[in-house]
C-alpha cells in the first residue's frame, strides 16, 4: 500500500483576526496521522524485548501481575513477531532468547517461573534486552525494549543522565524503549525522560491490577504506529514572533521540536503562541511555515511535509460575530495546567508544599473560568480535568502519599503534552 501523509490543520479560536491591532494569537496545530493499513496482517512486525524487574520489592502482587502482563503480551503477538525476555535483580538472566513468537505455551510457562529477589541492575538489564532486539534487528519492524520496573537503578550504571543518553543513542540506531513504572517507588525522573528520549512511551502503573491494561495500550500503540522519528519545525513569517510553544517539546539536535511517534487514530495537538503585527481590515497575512519531518513505518527514508498558514484581518465587530472554536482555549488551558503540574513538582522538591497546592488550586480555578465560556458539550472534559487537579491537590495534603503524588503529577504532565490517552 502506498504511504499516505498525515493531515495538518491550523485552528484558531476565531477564523479571522481583529484589524488594526497587534495581538497574541494561539494556533492549535492538529496533526492527524494517516490510517494504518486496513488488513490486520499488514500491521508492522514487532521485535520486542521484555526487560522485567524481579528485585525484592516486586514481591507479591506486583510480580504476579507483571508475570501475567508479560504472558498476555506473548498471547497478543503474531508468529511472525519476535520476542525475548530479560529478567533482572542484581543478576541479569536471559530468560527467553530472541525468537519468533510461535510456541506460545512454552514461552508463557517460562515467564511463569519468574520470582522476586535481590537488588536492581536496571541499566545492564536494559542493555541486554536491547542487544536481544539488535541482534535480530528487523528493518521496517518496530524494534523495541519494554522496561518494567518498580525500583531505582542501584547496581551498575546508576546515573540517570547517562542512562537517558544511552537510551537516546539506541533510539537513534533504530531501537526504541518504552518504560513501565509500577507503584510509588520507581524513579520517574529516570523512566519518563528515558522513554521520551528513546522514542517510546512512559507508563505509570499505580495499581498492579492496571498492568495488563497498560500493556494492551502499549501494544495497540505499537501496532497502530505509522511513523517514527517525528520532528516539527515552525518558522514565523516576517513581523510575526513565536513567543511560546505550549507543549514544551524537547529540541532535536538539529533544532526542531521532537514529537512523539505517530499512531493511527491518535491526532497530535500542538499549540503555538504567536505575536502578530497590526494590519488593515480585509487584508491577509502569511503567518507561519510548518515543516513536519517523519519516517513512515514501511519506509526507511525520512519525509518532510511542508505547509503554511495564512489568516485574514477583519473589523472587530465582524470578528466578534464569527463562531468561537472552543478547542483552542481548551488546549491552551490544559497545556497550561500541564505546566502547573510541573511547577507543583518543583515546589514539592523545594519543600514548599503549600505553594505546590496553591499552584494546583490556581490551575483548577482557571479551568473552571474557562469552562464557563465553553459550550455545554465540552463541559465534561473540563470537569474531568478539574477533578484530576483537585485530586492531586488533596493528595498533596497527605505527606505519606508524596511519592505517588509526584508520579501522578509527572505522568499527567507528560501525557498532556504528548497528547496521550488519559487513563
Amino acid at each position, binding site marked *: 500500500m502506498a504511504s499516505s501523509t498525515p493531515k495538518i490543520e491550523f485552528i484558531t479560536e476565531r477564523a479571522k483576526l481583529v484589524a488594526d491591532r497587534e495581538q497574541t494569537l494561539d494556533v492549535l496545530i492538529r496533526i492527524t496521522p494517516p490510517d494504518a493499513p486496513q488488513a490486520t496482517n499488514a500491521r508492522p512486525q514487532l521485535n520486542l524485548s521484555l526487560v522485567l524487574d524481579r528485585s525484592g520489592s516486586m514481591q507479591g502482587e506486583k510480580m504476579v501481575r507483571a508475570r501475567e502482563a508479560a504472558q498476555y503480551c506473548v498471547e497478543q503477538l503474531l508468529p511472525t513477531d519476535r520476542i525475548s525476555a530479560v529478567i533482572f535483580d*542484581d543478576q541479569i538472566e536471559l530468560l527467553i532468547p530472541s525468537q519468533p513468537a510461535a510456541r506460545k505455551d512454552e514461552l508463557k510457562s517460562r515467564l511463569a517461573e519468574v520470582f522476586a529477589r535481590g*537488588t536492581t*541492575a536496571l*541499566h*545492564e538489564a536494559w*542493555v541486554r534486552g*536491547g*542487544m536481544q*532486539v*539488535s*541482534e535480530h*534487528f528487523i*528493518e521496517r519492524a518496530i*524494534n523495541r525494549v519494554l522496561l518494567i520496573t518498580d525500583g531505582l537503578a*542501584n*547496581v*551498575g*550504571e*546508576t*546515573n540517570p543522565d*547517562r542512562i537517558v543518553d*544511552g537510551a537516546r*543513542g*539506541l533510539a537513534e*540506531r*533504530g*531501537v526504541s524503549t518504552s518504560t513501565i513504572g509500577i507503584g510509588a517507588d520507581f524513579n520517574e525522573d529516570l523512566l519518563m525522560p528515558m522513554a521520551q528520549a528513546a522514542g517510546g512511551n512512559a507508563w505509570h502503573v499505580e495499581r498492579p491490577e492496571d498492568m495488563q491494561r497498560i500493556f494492551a495500550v502499549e501494544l495497540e500503540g505499537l501496532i497502530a504506529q505509522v511513523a517514527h522519528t517525528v520532528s516539527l*519545525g515552525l*518558522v*514565523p513569517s*516576517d513581523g510575526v514572533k*513565536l513567543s511560546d510553544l505550549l507543549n514544551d517539546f524537547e*529540541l532535536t*539536535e*538539529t*533544532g*526542531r521540536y521532537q514529537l512523539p511517534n505517530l499512531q493511527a487514530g491518535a491526532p497530535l495537538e500542538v499549540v503555538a503562541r504567536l505575536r502578530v503585527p497590526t494590519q488593515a481590515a480585509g487584508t491577509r497575512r502569511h503567518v507561519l511555515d510548518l515543516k513536519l519531518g517523519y519516517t513512515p513505518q514501511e519506509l526507511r527514508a525520512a519525509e518532510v511535509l511542508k505547509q503554511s498558514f495564512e489568516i485574514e484581518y477583519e473589523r472587530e465587530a465582524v470578528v466578534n460575530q464569527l463562531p468561537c472554536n472552543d478547542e483552542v482555549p481548551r488546549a491552551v488551558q490544559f497545556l497550561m495546567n500541564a505546566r502547573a503540574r510541573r511547577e507543583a513538582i518543583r515546589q514539592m522538591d523545594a519543600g514548599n508544599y503549600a505553594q505546590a497546592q496553591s499552584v494546583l488550586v490556581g490551575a483548577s480555578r482557571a479551568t473552571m473560568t474557562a469552562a464557563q465560556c465553553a459550550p455545554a458539550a465540552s463541559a465534561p472534559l473540563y470537569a474531568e480535568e478539574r477533578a484530576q487537579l483537585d485530586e492531586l491537590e488533596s493528595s498533596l495534603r497527605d505527606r505519606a502519599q508524596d511519592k505517588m503524588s509526584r508520579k501522578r503529577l509527572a505522568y499527567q504532565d507528560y501525557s498532556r503534552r504528548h497528547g496521550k490517552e488519559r487513563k
Partner: protein
Amino acid sequence: MKGALEKLQQRKYVGVAELADMAARLLAEARLVQERGTVSEVPDERTVRYYLTEGLLSPAEEKQGTASVFGYLQLLQLLAVKNLQAQHLPIRKIRELVEGRSERELERLLGVDAKPANKHAALSYLESLLTQARVAPPTPPPPKFSPSAAQSRAVQSAAPQTTAQGRVTGTWERIELEPGLELHIHSAYRPPAEAKRLRRLAAAVVHVVTTYSHKLTGKRGR
C-alpha cells in the same frame, strides 16, 4: 558540505578573517540562506569576534604572533551557529545546542556524520555501553582513604576485576547516608570486625566531610 568538511579536519586558520572566509565559502556552497533581516547572511570578522566573546565559539588553542589560530572545532561551531540561525532559533537555544559539544556531535548536528548500517550500529553501540560501564564504573570506587593524607583528590576508577572470560565480577551498592551524601560499597568488601577499626572508619568519614565543608567555606570566602 560533507565532502568538503572531511578534507578540513586538520586545517588551521590563522586569524579570525581566515576562519570567517572558510565558513562563508562552505555556507555559500551549501546555499544556506538567512531569511531574517537581523542575521548576517555570511559570517564576517565582526560576527566571529562577537561569537567568541559570547562563548559560542571556543577560544583558540594556540597563537601565531598576535593572531589566534583556529581549527576544525571552531569551524564546525561557526557553521552550526549559522545553520541554526537559518532555522530561526534564538541565540539562547543555539547556545544550548552548540556550547560544549564535541566535533562528532557538531558534525551530527550539521548532518555530515557517517551513519553506519542499522543492525551493527545498534548492537555495537550497546556493546560499547557495556564496555564503558565496565572499564570505568560510573559509580566510581572511592579512593583508598588515609586519614593522614586526607587532601581531596579526583576519584579514580580502580581497575575492574575480570575473570578469564573477561566478565566483571562484583557490583557496587549505593547507600544514601543523607541527601547529597552516598556511600558506595563493593560486593567484595568485608566490613572490619574489631571496634577499633570501625572507629577508625567512622573518623575517616568525619574527616572527609569536614575537609569538604572547609573547602566549601574557603570557596565562598574568596
